[in-house]
Protein backbone atom coordinates (compact mmCIF):
# COMPACT_ATOMS: atom_id res chain seq x y z
CA UNK A 1 0.00 0.00 0.00
CA UNK A 2 1.11 3.53 -0.75
CA UNK A 3 -0.10 5.52 2.20
CA UNK A 4 -0.82 9.19 1.59
CA UNK A 5 -3.29 9.92 4.39
CA UNK A 6 -0.96 11.15 7.11
CA UNK A 7 -3.24 14.10 7.89
CA UNK A 8 -5.63 11.51 9.34
CA UNK A 9 -2.93 9.57 11.12
CA UNK A 10 0.70 8.83 10.37
CA UNK A 11 0.50 5.14 9.61
CA UNK A 12 4.22 4.48 9.42
CA UNK A 13 5.76 5.01 12.86
CA UNK A 14 9.35 4.95 14.01
CA UNK A 15 10.33 1.46 15.20
CA UNK A 16 11.07 2.95 18.62
CA UNK A 17 7.38 3.86 18.99
CA UNK A 18 6.27 0.26 18.54
CA UNK A 19 8.96 -0.96 20.92
CA UNK A 20 7.94 1.59 23.56
CA UNK A 21 4.29 0.51 23.37
CA UNK A 22 5.16 -3.15 23.80
CA UNK A 23 7.62 -2.39 26.59
CA UNK A 24 4.99 -0.36 28.44
CA UNK A 25 2.46 -3.18 28.18
CA UNK A 26 5.01 -5.58 29.60
CA UNK A 27 6.35 -3.48 32.44
CA UNK A 28 4.02 -0.63 33.44
CA UNK A 29 0.86 -0.50 35.53
CA UNK A 30 -1.25 2.49 36.61
CA UNK A 31 0.61 5.75 37.16
CA UNK A 32 -0.16 7.77 40.29
CA UNK A 33 -1.87 4.85 41.95
CA UNK A 34 0.90 3.01 43.76
CA UNK A 35 4.41 3.22 45.17
CA UNK A 36 5.62 -0.03 43.62
CA UNK A 37 8.04 -0.39 40.72
CA UNK A 38 5.63 -0.86 37.79
CA UNK A 39 3.54 2.15 38.87
CA UNK A 40 6.66 4.27 39.29
CA UNK A 41 7.89 3.24 35.87
CA UNK A 42 4.57 4.34 34.38
CA UNK A 43 4.81 7.67 36.25
CA UNK A 44 8.33 8.23 34.97
CA UNK A 45 7.21 7.53 31.41
CA UNK A 46 4.38 10.05 31.65
CA UNK A 47 6.69 12.67 33.08
CA UNK A 48 9.28 12.03 30.41
CA UNK A 49 6.62 12.51 27.74
CA UNK A 50 5.27 15.69 29.36
CA UNK A 51 8.78 17.11 29.71
CA UNK A 52 9.68 16.29 26.10
CA UNK A 53 6.47 17.95 24.87
CA UNK A 54 7.08 20.97 27.12
CA UNK A 55 10.54 21.38 25.61
CA UNK A 56 9.40 20.88 22.02
CA UNK A 57 6.58 23.42 22.33
CA UNK A 58 8.24 25.85 24.77
CA UNK A 59 5.76 25.29 27.59
CA UNK A 60 7.10 26.72 30.88
CA UNK A 61 6.12 23.72 33.02
CA UNK A 62 5.47 20.04 32.36
CA UNK A 63 2.40 20.42 34.58
CA UNK A 64 0.80 22.48 31.80
CA UNK A 65 0.99 19.53 29.41
CA UNK A 66 -2.22 17.50 29.71
CA UNK A 67 -2.76 14.08 28.14
CA UNK A 68 -5.95 13.60 26.17
CA UNK A 69 -7.39 10.88 23.94
CA UNK A 70 -6.89 12.94 20.79
CA UNK A 71 -7.05 16.53 19.54
CA UNK A 72 -10.86 16.47 19.54
CA UNK A 73 -10.85 15.68 23.26
CA UNK A 74 -8.34 18.47 23.87
CA UNK A 75 -10.33 20.97 21.81
CA UNK A 76 -13.54 20.09 23.66
CA UNK A 77 -11.86 20.87 26.98
CA UNK A 78 -10.48 24.15 25.63
CA UNK A 79 -13.69 25.33 23.98
CA UNK A 80 -15.90 24.38 26.93
CA UNK A 81 -13.52 26.06 29.38
CA UNK A 82 -13.72 29.39 27.59
CA UNK A 83 -16.99 29.72 25.69
CA UNK A 84 -20.12 30.19 27.76
CA UNK A 85 -23.38 28.54 26.63
CA UNK A 86 -24.89 31.01 24.20
CA UNK A 87 -21.62 32.95 24.11
CA UNK A 88 -19.66 34.09 21.09
CA UNK A 89 -16.58 32.68 19.38
CA UNK A 90 -14.49 33.85 16.45
CA UNK A 91 -13.15 31.06 14.24
CA UNK A 92 -11.17 30.88 11.03
CA UNK A 93 -12.86 29.78 7.84
CA UNK A 94 -11.00 26.47 7.95
CA UNK A 95 -12.05 24.88 11.24
CA UNK A 96 -12.65 21.18 11.77
CA UNK A 97 -15.85 19.79 13.27
CA UNK A 98 -13.78 19.13 16.42
CA UNK A 99 -14.06 22.88 16.93
CA UNK A 100 -17.39 23.76 15.36
CA UNK A 101 -19.47 20.95 16.84
CA UNK A 102 -18.60 21.78 20.47
CA UNK A 103 -19.41 25.42 19.68
CA UNK A 104 -22.71 24.35 18.14
CA UNK A 105 -23.48 22.20 21.19
CA UNK A 106 -22.91 25.24 23.39
CA UNK A 107 -25.33 27.26 21.28
CA UNK A 108 -22.56 29.75 20.66
CA UNK A 109 -22.72 32.49 18.09
CA UNK A 110 -19.91 31.66 15.67
CA UNK A 111 -18.29 34.53 13.79
CA UNK A 112 -16.30 33.14 10.87
CA UNK A 113 -13.22 35.17 9.97
CA UNK A 114 -13.33 33.92 6.41
CA UNK A 115 -10.64 34.68 3.86
CA UNK A 116 -9.59 33.05 0.58
CA UNK A 117 -7.13 30.16 0.62
CA UNK A 118 -3.45 31.05 0.95
CA UNK A 119 -4.11 34.72 1.74
CA UNK A 120 -2.53 35.29 5.17
CA UNK A 121 -2.94 39.06 5.10
CA UNK A 122 -6.66 38.83 4.38
CA UNK A 123 -7.01 36.11 7.02
CA UNK A 124 -5.45 38.33 9.69
CA UNK A 125 -7.61 41.27 8.62
CA UNK A 126 -10.75 39.12 8.83
CA UNK A 127 -9.76 38.13 12.38
CA UNK A 128 -9.15 41.73 13.32
CA UNK A 129 -12.64 42.73 12.13
CA UNK A 130 -14.29 39.77 13.87
CA UNK A 131 -12.42 40.27 17.14
CA UNK A 132 -13.62 43.87 17.27
CA UNK A 133 -17.12 42.50 17.97
CA UNK A 134 -15.83 40.89 21.18
CA UNK A 135 -15.86 37.16 21.93
CA UNK A 136 -15.43 34.62 24.70
CA UNK A 137 -12.67 33.01 22.65
CA UNK A 138 -11.10 32.75 19.23
CA UNK A 139 -10.28 29.37 17.75
CA UNK A 140 -7.87 29.01 14.87
CA UNK A 141 -6.34 26.05 13.16
CA UNK A 142 -2.64 26.49 12.50
CA UNK A 143 -2.81 24.48 9.26
CA UNK A 144 -5.98 23.59 7.36
CA UNK A 145 -6.54 19.84 7.50
CA UNK A 146 -8.09 20.03 4.02
CA UNK A 147 -5.83 22.37 2.08
CA UNK A 148 -2.60 22.55 4.07
CA UNK A 149 -2.96 26.34 4.16
CA UNK A 150 -0.66 27.69 6.89
CA UNK A 151 -2.62 30.36 8.71
CA UNK A 152 -0.77 33.43 10.06
CA UNK A 153 -1.02 32.16 13.61
CA UNK A 154 1.56 34.50 15.18
CA UNK A 155 -0.28 37.54 13.80
CA UNK A 156 -3.67 36.14 14.84
CA UNK A 157 -2.29 35.47 18.33
CA UNK A 158 -1.05 39.06 18.48
CA UNK A 159 -4.47 40.38 17.44
CA UNK A 160 -6.18 38.22 20.05
CA UNK A 161 -3.86 39.46 22.79
CA UNK A 162 -4.49 43.05 21.73
CA UNK A 163 -8.27 42.47 21.77
CA UNK A 164 -8.12 40.62 25.11
CA UNK A 165 -9.71 37.52 23.57
CA UNK A 166 -8.24 34.16 24.65
CA UNK A 167 -7.01 32.08 21.72
CA UNK A 168 -7.31 28.34 21.21
CA UNK A 169 -4.98 26.94 18.56
CA UNK A 170 -5.70 23.68 16.81
CA UNK A 171 -2.23 22.38 16.01
CA UNK A 172 -3.48 19.06 14.62
CA UNK A 173 -1.63 19.45 11.34
CA UNK A 174 1.28 21.55 12.53
CA UNK A 175 2.60 19.87 15.68
CA UNK A 176 5.81 18.14 14.71
CA UNK A 177 5.95 19.87 11.32
CA UNK A 178 6.06 23.60 12.06
CA UNK A 179 7.45 25.49 15.04
CA UNK A 180 4.73 25.78 17.70
CA UNK A 181 5.97 28.10 20.44
CA UNK A 182 3.44 28.13 23.26
CA UNK A 183 5.18 30.86 25.25
CA UNK A 184 5.68 33.19 22.28
CA UNK A 185 2.13 32.75 21.01
CA UNK A 186 0.61 33.38 24.43
CA UNK A 187 -2.36 31.16 23.58
CA UNK A 188 -4.88 30.10 26.21
CA UNK A 189 -4.74 26.53 24.90
CA UNK A 190 -3.01 24.61 22.14
CA UNK A 191 -4.56 21.26 21.21
CA UNK A 192 -2.91 18.54 19.17
CA UNK A 193 -3.13 14.83 18.43
CA UNK A 194 -0.33 12.49 19.37
CA UNK A 195 -0.87 10.21 16.40
CA UNK A 196 -0.17 12.55 13.49
CA UNK A 197 2.97 14.67 13.24
CA UNK A 198 4.21 13.47 16.62
CA UNK A 199 4.18 9.83 15.44
CA UNK A 200 2.58 8.40 18.57
CA UNK A 201 -0.13 5.74 18.56
CA UNK A 202 -3.82 6.50 18.00
CA UNK A 203 -5.65 7.33 21.22
CA UNK A 204 -3.13 9.96 22.27
CA UNK A 205 -3.37 13.75 22.30
CA UNK A 206 -2.06 16.77 24.16
CA UNK A 207 -3.55 19.96 25.51
CA UNK A 208 -1.09 22.71 26.37
CA UNK A 209 -2.71 24.90 28.99
CA UNK A 210 -2.13 28.58 29.61
CA UNK A 211 -5.56 29.33 31.03
CA UNK A 212 -7.82 28.01 33.77
CA UNK A 213 -9.58 24.91 32.50
CA UNK A 214 -12.77 23.05 33.31
CA UNK A 215 -12.70 19.25 33.51
CA UNK A 216 -14.63 17.41 30.85
CA UNK A 217 -14.54 14.25 32.98
CA UNK A 218 -14.58 13.84 36.72
CA UNK A 219 -13.06 10.89 38.54
CA UNK A 220 -10.02 9.48 40.27
CA UNK A 221 -6.69 11.23 39.85
CA UNK A 222 -4.55 9.58 42.52
CA UNK A 223 -4.41 12.93 44.32
CA UNK A 224 -6.51 14.77 46.95
CA UNK A 225 -8.79 11.76 47.14
CA UNK A 226 -10.68 12.99 50.21
CA UNK A 227 -12.16 15.85 48.22
CA UNK A 228 -15.17 15.37 45.97
CA UNK A 229 -14.21 18.27 43.73
CA UNK A 230 -11.64 17.69 41.04
CA UNK A 231 -8.17 18.99 42.02
CA UNK A 232 -7.68 22.64 41.13
CA UNK A 233 -4.18 22.03 39.74
CA UNK A 234 -2.89 20.69 36.47
CA UNK A 235 -2.52 18.16 35.05
CA UNK A 236 -4.71 16.22 37.50
CA UNK A 237 -7.67 18.58 37.02
CA UNK A 238 -8.07 17.39 33.44
CA UNK A 239 -6.83 13.80 33.71
CA UNK A 240 -9.48 11.71 35.47
CA UNK A 241 -9.11 7.94 35.25
CA UNK A 242 -6.28 5.66 34.25
CA UNK A 243 -3.97 6.95 31.55
CA UNK A 244 -3.26 5.32 28.21
CA UNK A 245 0.22 4.36 29.38
CA UNK A 246 1.27 2.29 26.34
CA UNK A 247 0.02 5.08 24.08
CA UNK A 248 1.88 7.75 26.02
CA UNK A 249 5.05 5.64 26.06
CA UNK A 250 4.77 5.46 22.27
CA UNK A 251 4.07 9.17 22.07
CA UNK A 252 7.21 9.91 24.08
CA UNK A 253 9.22 7.89 21.55
CA UNK A 254 7.45 9.72 18.71
CA UNK A 255 8.35 13.10 20.18
CA UNK A 256 11.95 11.91 20.57
CA UNK A 257 11.91 11.05 16.86
CA UNK A 258 10.60 14.51 15.91
CA UNK A 259 13.17 16.24 18.10
CA UNK A 260 15.96 14.14 16.60
CA UNK A 261 14.79 14.74 13.03
CA UNK A 262 13.90 18.39 13.73
CA UNK A 263 10.60 19.89 12.60
CA UNK A 264 12.34 22.12 10.04
CA UNK A 265 13.78 19.09 8.27
CA UNK A 266 10.49 17.21 8.34
CA UNK A 267 8.69 20.28 6.94
CA UNK A 268 11.26 20.64 4.16
CA UNK A 269 10.94 16.98 3.23
CA UNK A 270 7.14 17.21 3.13
CA UNK A 271 7.29 20.41 1.07
CA UNK A 272 9.51 18.80 -1.54
CA UNK A 273 7.05 15.94 -1.90
CA UNK A 274 4.14 18.36 -2.13
CA UNK A 275 5.86 20.43 -4.82
CA UNK A 276 6.47 17.30 -6.86
CA UNK A 277 2.81 16.35 -6.53
CA UNK A 278 1.61 19.82 -7.49
CA UNK A 279 3.88 20.01 -10.53
CA UNK A 280 2.71 16.57 -11.65
CA UNK A 281 -0.99 17.24 -11.10
CA UNK A 282 -0.86 20.50 -13.03
CA UNK A 283 0.07 18.46 -16.08
CA UNK A 284 -2.85 16.06 -15.81
CA UNK A 285 -5.97 17.03 -17.77
CA UNK A 286 -9.19 17.45 -15.70
CA UNK A 287 -7.24 17.60 -12.42
CA UNK A 288 -7.38 20.75 -10.30
CA UNK A 289 -5.11 21.03 -7.31
CA UNK A 290 -5.29 23.66 -4.58
CA UNK A 291 -1.82 25.06 -4.06
CA UNK A 292 -0.40 28.54 -3.53
CA UNK A 293 2.08 30.32 -5.77
CA UNK A 294 4.44 30.45 -2.81
CA UNK A 295 4.96 26.85 -1.69
CA UNK A 296 6.03 28.02 1.76
CA UNK A 297 2.38 28.75 2.57
CA UNK A 298 1.41 25.08 2.46
CA UNK A 299 2.24 22.23 4.84
CA UNK A 300 2.06 18.49 4.00
CA UNK A 301 -1.58 18.44 2.82
CA UNK A 302 -2.81 18.88 -0.75
CA UNK A 303 -6.41 18.83 -1.97
CA UNK A 304 -7.36 18.14 -5.56
CA UNK A 305 -10.38 17.25 -7.66
CA UNK A 306 -10.92 15.43 -10.93
CA UNK A 307 -13.48 17.15 -13.14
CA UNK A 308 -16.59 15.04 -13.61
CA UNK A 309 -15.59 12.51 -10.97
CA UNK A 310 -16.92 12.36 -7.43
CA UNK A 311 -13.99 12.46 -4.97
CA UNK A 312 -15.19 9.27 -3.26
CA UNK A 313 -15.24 7.51 -6.64
CA UNK A 314 -11.75 8.81 -7.41
CA UNK A 315 -10.52 7.57 -4.02
CA UNK A 316 -12.07 4.17 -4.62
CA UNK A 317 -10.33 3.88 -7.99
CA UNK A 318 -7.01 4.89 -6.45
CA UNK A 319 -7.53 2.43 -3.59
CA UNK A 320 -7.95 -0.33 -6.19
CA UNK A 321 -4.47 0.64 -7.38
CA UNK A 322 -3.09 0.36 -3.85
CA UNK A 323 -3.04 4.07 -3.03
CA UNK A 324 -4.59 5.19 0.26
CA UNK A 325 -5.87 8.74 0.52
CA UNK A 326 -8.99 10.42 1.73
CA UNK A 327 -11.95 11.93 -0.08
CA UNK A 328 -14.96 14.02 0.85
CA UNK A 329 -15.29 16.80 3.40
CA UNK A 330 -12.57 15.63 5.82
CA UNK A 331 -14.81 16.60 8.78
CA UNK A 332 -14.32 20.25 7.85
CA UNK A 333 -17.40 21.62 6.06
CA UNK A 334 -16.42 25.18 7.05
CA UNK A 335 -13.20 24.82 5.05
CA UNK A 336 -15.04 23.63 1.95
CA UNK A 337 -17.60 26.41 2.29
CA UNK A 338 -14.80 28.97 2.50
CA UNK A 339 -12.88 27.48 -0.44
CA UNK A 340 -15.97 26.83 -2.56
CA UNK A 341 -15.54 23.05 -2.75
CA UNK A 342 -18.95 22.07 -1.39
CA UNK A 343 -20.93 19.84 -1.72
CA UNK A 344 -18.62 17.06 -2.88
CA UNK A 345 -15.40 18.15 -1.22
CA UNK A 346 -11.99 17.12 -2.49
CA UNK A 347 -9.44 14.35 -2.66
CA UNK A 348 -6.72 14.88 -0.11
CA UNK A 349 -3.18 13.55 -0.17
CA UNK A 350 -1.01 14.12 2.86
CA UNK A 351 2.53 13.06 3.63
CA UNK A 352 4.81 12.39 6.56
CA UNK A 353 8.50 12.00 7.31
CA UNK A 354 8.18 8.43 6.00
CA UNK A 355 6.66 9.34 2.62
CA UNK A 356 8.90 8.87 -0.40
CA UNK A 357 9.24 10.38 -3.87
CA UNK A 358 8.33 7.13 -5.64
CA UNK A 359 5.01 7.14 -3.78
CA UNK A 360 4.15 10.57 -5.17
CA UNK A 361 5.13 9.36 -8.63
CA UNK A 362 2.92 6.30 -8.25
CA UNK A 363 0.00 8.54 -7.28
CA UNK A 364 0.58 10.73 -10.34
CA UNK A 365 0.67 7.72 -12.69
CA UNK A 366 -2.52 6.32 -11.16
CA UNK A 367 -4.21 9.71 -11.30
CA UNK A 368 -3.34 9.99 -15.00
CA UNK A 369 -5.13 6.69 -15.58
CA UNK A 370 -8.16 7.58 -13.48
CA UNK A 371 -8.55 11.03 -15.02
CA UNK A 372 -8.21 9.66 -18.56
CA UNK A 373 -11.13 7.23 -18.21
Amino acid at each position, binding site marked *: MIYLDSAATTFQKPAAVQRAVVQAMRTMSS*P*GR*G*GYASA*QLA*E*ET*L*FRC*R*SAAAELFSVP*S*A*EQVVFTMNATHALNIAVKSLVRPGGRAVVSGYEHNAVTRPLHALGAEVIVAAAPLFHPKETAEAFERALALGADAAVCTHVSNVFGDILPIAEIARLCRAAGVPLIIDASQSAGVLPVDFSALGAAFIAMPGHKGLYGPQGTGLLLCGHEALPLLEGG*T*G*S*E*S*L*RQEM*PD*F*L*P*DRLEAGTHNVPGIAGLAAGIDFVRAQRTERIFLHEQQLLRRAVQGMRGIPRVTCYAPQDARMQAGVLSFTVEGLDPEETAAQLAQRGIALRAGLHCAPFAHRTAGTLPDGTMRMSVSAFSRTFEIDALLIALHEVAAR
Partner: protein
Amino acid sequence: MDYYLFAARSVTHAQQMAKVLSDAGVSAKIRRAGAGMTGRGCGYTLEVSRRSYARALDACRASGVQPVRVLLVSGETRQEVST
Protein backbone atom coordinates in the same frame (compact mmCIF):
# COMPACT_ATOMS: atom_id res chain seq x y z
CA MET B 1 18.23 9.86 61.15
CA ASP B 2 16.34 13.13 60.70
CA TYR B 3 15.19 14.14 57.25
CA TYR B 4 12.73 16.47 55.55
CA LEU B 5 9.65 15.68 53.51
CA PHE B 6 8.74 18.09 50.72
CA ALA B 7 5.05 17.62 50.02
CA ALA B 8 3.79 17.85 46.44
CA ARG B 9 0.23 18.38 45.20
CA SER B 10 0.50 15.67 42.55
CA VAL B 11 2.88 13.10 41.18
CA THR B 12 3.73 15.47 38.31
CA HIS B 13 4.51 18.26 40.77
CA ALA B 14 6.68 15.83 42.74
CA GLN B 15 8.48 14.83 39.55
CA GLN B 16 9.04 18.48 38.61
CA MET B 17 10.45 19.14 42.05
CA ALA B 18 12.65 16.02 41.89
CA LYS B 19 14.08 17.25 38.59
CA VAL B 20 14.79 20.70 40.04
CA LEU B 21 16.56 19.08 42.98
CA SER B 22 18.46 16.68 40.77
CA ASP B 23 19.66 19.60 38.62
CA ALA B 24 20.87 21.20 41.85
CA GLY B 25 22.75 18.05 42.79
CA VAL B 26 20.26 16.94 45.45
CA SER B 27 18.95 13.42 45.19
CA ALA B 28 15.40 12.96 46.48
CA LYS B 29 13.21 9.93 46.24
CA ILE B 30 9.52 10.34 45.41
CA ARG B 31 7.20 8.58 47.83
CA ARG B 32 3.47 8.31 48.09
CA ALA B 33 2.05 10.08 51.11
CA GLY B 34 -1.02 9.22 53.14
CA ALA B 35 -4.02 11.40 53.84
CA GLY B 36 -2.48 12.48 57.13
CA MET B 37 0.38 14.10 55.29
CA THR B 38 -1.63 16.10 52.79
CA GLY B 39 -4.86 16.53 54.71
CA ARG B 40 -6.71 16.01 51.43
CA GLY B 41 -6.05 12.38 50.63
CA CYS B 42 -3.45 10.74 48.41
CA GLY B 43 -0.38 12.79 47.67
CA TYR B 44 3.35 12.63 47.12
CA THR B 45 6.47 13.67 48.99
CA LEU B 46 10.17 13.93 48.36
CA GLU B 47 12.56 12.78 51.03
CA VAL B 48 15.44 15.25 51.45
CA SER B 49 18.35 14.71 53.78
CA ARG B 50 19.08 17.25 56.50
CA ARG B 51 22.42 17.97 54.88
CA SER B 52 20.80 18.90 51.55
CA TYR B 53 17.82 20.79 52.97
CA ALA B 54 19.05 24.38 52.50
CA ARG B 55 20.30 23.71 48.98
CA ALA B 56 17.07 21.94 48.08
CA LEU B 57 14.92 24.79 49.35
CA ASP B 58 17.02 27.36 47.50
CA ALA B 59 16.70 25.37 44.28
CA CYS B 60 12.93 25.13 44.68
CA ARG B 61 12.62 28.85 45.34
CA ALA B 62 14.81 29.74 42.38
CA SER B 63 12.82 27.54 40.00
CA GLY B 64 9.37 28.49 41.27
CA VAL B 65 8.57 24.80 41.79
CA GLN B 66 7.93 24.92 45.53
CA PRO B 67 6.69 22.29 47.96
CA VAL B 68 3.16 22.79 49.30
CA ARG B 69 4.51 22.12 52.78
CA VAL B 70 7.70 20.87 54.42
CA LEU B 71 7.92 18.54 57.40
CA LEU B 72 10.90 17.64 59.54
CA VAL B 73 10.85 13.99 60.48
CA SER B 74 12.71 13.07 63.66
CA GLY B 75 12.22 9.49 64.66
CA GLU B 76 8.48 9.04 65.11
CA THR B 77 7.62 12.75 65.17
CA ARG B 78 6.78 15.02 62.27
CA GLN B 79 6.81 18.76 62.55
CA GLU B 80 5.80 21.28 59.92
CA VAL B 81 8.58 23.67 59.06
CA SER B 82 8.00 27.24 58.04
CA THR B 83 9.77 27.95 54.74
